């Protein structure tokens, strides 16, 4: 993080007073736990509203957003500090390219994250998508393969476009629970979290509505259709996740490259060689000898 400009988090003042109050409260809670830095990694498909969410949390337009095309060619880290506390949010480009998880994008993200510690992973998807498909699983798998399964200890699912009217015959709550459940199931499958482990991986879900037309309550806070102001709620869950007692993920060379298969078992090579000599080559030699002895000699020999 050295060299990167850490600006004062001034935009916090643009939030409604009620929100500000809650945020300061949460930050204080973090400081009490001796947490001075919080690094949030935002990942997900393209066009689900990752960058908008980042902008919403910071409270200013730090990352360019466009409705129709990917505006985030490479990961961007936004850092804001307030009274000794630093908040880092890493926005990443969409992981999907041409119907596949893009290894290249994943690669740039990994390289960008080198030597950084991730405290919270925001896995972003839309609430108003009805179906979960194989691609979602692939994305989760790609994230798992890149950063290890443990990253899901520090993860939460963020569902954007929360302000919607659910399809017929479903209440909003019902829809939300169905949608989040199916997505969580997909995450569990992709991350290979077994049913036993589900309790261990309590992945919380938060709703987000980045749109400017978002309903507001009497305190001018942006609220969800349920009436909850979502920014304090989101930050609250983030702090919860960061303080859930599990270790943060340090992205180092080893984690990125995975275990070096070339080094695995190297020390056993002399043993393997000895085994091969005595239990493969020798028996084959014996078989050959038997063959020679058994060879049907012509009658004249």
């Amino acid at each position, binding site marked *: 993080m050295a060299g990167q400009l850490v600006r004062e988090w001034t935009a916090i003042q643009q939030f409604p007073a009620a929100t500000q109050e809650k945020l300061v409260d949460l930050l204080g809670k973090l400081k009490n736990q001796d947490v001075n830095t919080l690094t949030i990694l935002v990942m997900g498909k393209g066009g689900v509203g990752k960058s908008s969410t980042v902008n919403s949390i910071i409270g200013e337009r730090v990352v360019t957003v466009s409705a129709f095309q990917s505006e985030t060619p490479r990961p961007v880290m936004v850092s804001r500090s307030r009274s000794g506390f630093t908040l880092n949010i890493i926005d990443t480009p969409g992981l999907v*390219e*041409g*119907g*596949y998880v*893009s*290894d*290249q994008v994943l*690669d740039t993200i990994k390289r960008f994250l080198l030597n950084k510690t991730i405290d919270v992973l925001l896995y972003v998807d839309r609430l108003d998508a009805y179906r979960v498909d194989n691609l979602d699983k692939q994305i989760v798998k790609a994230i798992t393969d890149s950063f290890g399964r443990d990253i899901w200890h520090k993860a939460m699912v963020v569902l954007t476009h929360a302000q919607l009217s659910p399809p017929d015959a479903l209440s909003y709550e019902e829809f939300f629970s169905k949608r989040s459940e199916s997505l969580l199931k997909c995450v569990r499958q992709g991350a290979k979290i077994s049913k036993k482990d589900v309790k261990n991986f309590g992945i919380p879900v938060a709703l987000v509505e980045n749109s400017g037309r978002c309903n507001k309550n009497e305190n001018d806070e942006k609220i969800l259709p349920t009436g909850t102001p979502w920014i304090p709620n989101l930050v609250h869950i983030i702090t919860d996740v960061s303080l859930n007692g599990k270790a943060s993920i340090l992205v180092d060379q080893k984690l990125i490259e*995975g275990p070096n*298969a*070339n*080094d*695995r*078992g*190297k020390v*056993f*090579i002399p043993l*393997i*060689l000895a085994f*091969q000599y005595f239990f*493969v*080559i020798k028996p*084959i*030699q014996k*078989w*050959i*000898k038997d*063959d*020679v002895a058994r*060879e049907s000699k*012509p*009658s*004249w*020999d």
Partner: protein
Amino acid sequence: MSSSAAPAHLLPLTSSTASRRRNSSATASVSRLHSPNSIVQPNLPSVAVSASLQNPKPSKSPPFLLNYLISPKSLGPCAASCILFHLAKPVFSGSGTIFNLGGGGGGGGGGGAGGGGGGGGGSDGGQGGGFWSRIFSPAAIAKDDEPQQEWDTHGLPANIVVQLNKLSGFKKYKVSEILFLDRRRGSTVGTEDSFFEMVSLRPGGIYNKAQLQKELETLATCGMFEKVDLETKTNPDGTISITIPFLESTWQSADRFRCINVGLMPQSKPIEMDPDMTEKERLEYYRSQEKDYRRRIERSRPCLLPIAVQREILQMLRQQGKVSARLLQRIRDRVQQWYHENGYACAQVVNFGNLNTKEVVCEVVEGDITQLVIQFQDKLGNTCEGNTQFPVIKRELPKQLRQGQVFNIEAGKQALRNINSLALFSNIEVNPRPDEKNEGGIIVEVKLKELEQKSAEVSTEWSIVPGRGGRPTLASIQPGGTVSFEHRNIKGLNRSLLGSVTTSNFLNPQDDLAFKLEYVHPYLDGVYNPRNRTFRASCFNSRKLSPVFTGGPGIEEVPPIWVDRAGVKANITENFTRQSKFTYGLVMEEITTRDESSHIAANGQRVLPSGGVSADGPPTTLSGTGVDRMAFLQANITRDNTKFLNGAIVGERNVFQLDQGLGIGSKFPFFNRHQLTVTRFLQLKQVEEGAGKPPPPVLVLHGHYGGCVGDLPSYDAFTLGGPYSVRGYNMGELGAARNILELAAELRIPIRNTHVYVFAEHGNDLGSSKDVKGNPTEVYRRVGHGSSYGVGAKLGLVRAEYAVDQNSGTGAVFFRFGERF
């Protein structure tokens, strides 16, 4: 006498006209009395030199053939005609050279003309047959004669019996009929009777009085008859009929049979019995004869004839009761048949002794090898000094061809094949030849024509590249080709040095220069040591397309990666059998990976969805620079006991290959890369072995495991898919992994002279694709495992097969060369 006895041990033809003809000219000298119990020598194919004068048809045979027939060595080629075979071998010049294994006479030098005849027979066996049949077939002779009307009518009243000595000595009589009249039974014997083999006279033949007299003399002295005569009867049409009344010789019945090898024993010569001997002297004489004979039996060696055949003959003796000449003939035929069926081409029954006792002694000359001669010939066929050392050749000769053994034609063929596999000679002959100094002995002659020791070759090709506007210009003509040299058989010990350089453009050879320099040093443990180890050292380079950088199904073209290897290799190969061997050695090589445009590529390329190409794919080398250097030990042990059973392969083959990195080279590569291949060819039905018999259906089971522990550069990763991995997929289409397992089963069903087959195969990366650096399997969107099944037919060298790949469920027809297993 001795001159006539020597050929007695020559290769005989048991049946047919050849022996008849020979017999016709046999002289009185063939009958030898070894004991007072008279000994018969039935139908001994023996030829005396003097016989040339008595040849029944001297004027009709072409002069060289005549010579060929009557020479003492002439019997060899007769046998040679049945043991002759060719072995074509492509030699350096590209033209086929013929090796032949001639018989005794062909090379034995029965006069220049005889040799010529042998050569003629050797070069074209088929024609040779015709040639023989023309000589021996009386019909053919008669046909030759008829147009000329060369016979004279008898000029006597018809239907009168004329004594032989009453015939005119100046007339040529045409014989219309020959009858054998058994006086004891008072009936004539059929033409299929073995007695007809005894006479050279044939119905329709033309003979003069002297010939008929000679014939009678032959019959009288052959020992088969107690009494024999020859009567002629005039026919109305001017021809004569011959009746041969005879009394067959018979002896006491016998209930024991003994077969002895009398080869290399001096033929005992009968002492002429003085007709004026007194009774006492005669008894004395008989007794001494008997004693001599007993001693002879004692000194003789046991023969090879198996008990089973001996018992069979004993059965014949018992059934017959009295021992008759014809029975002895049958015994002789049976004994000789066994010998010849088992390859003892020089074996011959020469005598029956001890008759009129309870035992029949069959004397056999088996054809003991008295000497083995290795000769070199120059291009003109003259004997010359060879460069090859004798032990090199001697170690290729089977034991059966050594001095003191009995000559066997199969051993001769084996010797021929073994020597041929040395690839040092343009012509090889293995000839058995009678030993003149040692009666009954065989000298085996190995005649070799050496190939040129040094050779160099330059072949060029000009490739004209279309220039601007499609027209070839002067600058676009490239001289390309191969320069090679070979120095074979250095020091006469079959060591060789060979090198070659190939390029498509000698003016700019760095592009695609391929070179090879190899030194081969056989008999590492000494040429006398039976251990067969060969040392090889070579410099090499090679360029191959890497199957690791191949796309899976549905992915567009993956930019190819070429893997260039150049280095030195030294190894020792120990041959246990023709197919099983153990090779171990050291390899030092430099591996360079290049892209399409021959630039060094450190990473594989991948096509982006946008259509662009990025060069950040999996690393191609261990060092990450595109150039690796490494030294490793390589061992390969192959156990192969497969054999052809009527054209189908049966048996099993196991191959274990090991590359052990030594930590020497770029990034200190230390690895253990191993592969085990197990293939079983299971015969599903017992079939009789033999030419023309149908091959059995065969089930082939195949398993291949490959694995690597330690540093694994992508070019050494195991790839799945391809005609030798999992059929129905392209090379590497299924993935590239650290550990792989391939399983295959194929059922081959013979149809006519080929076979059809069904197969199922599976290849699996065992989840180890991710353990290859950069995971090329996933980068190029491959599955990592796959199965296929299909059917196919073998069409000559080509396999045509329809294979269904189960990953996509689609099938395709493939044509492949060579075998999968």
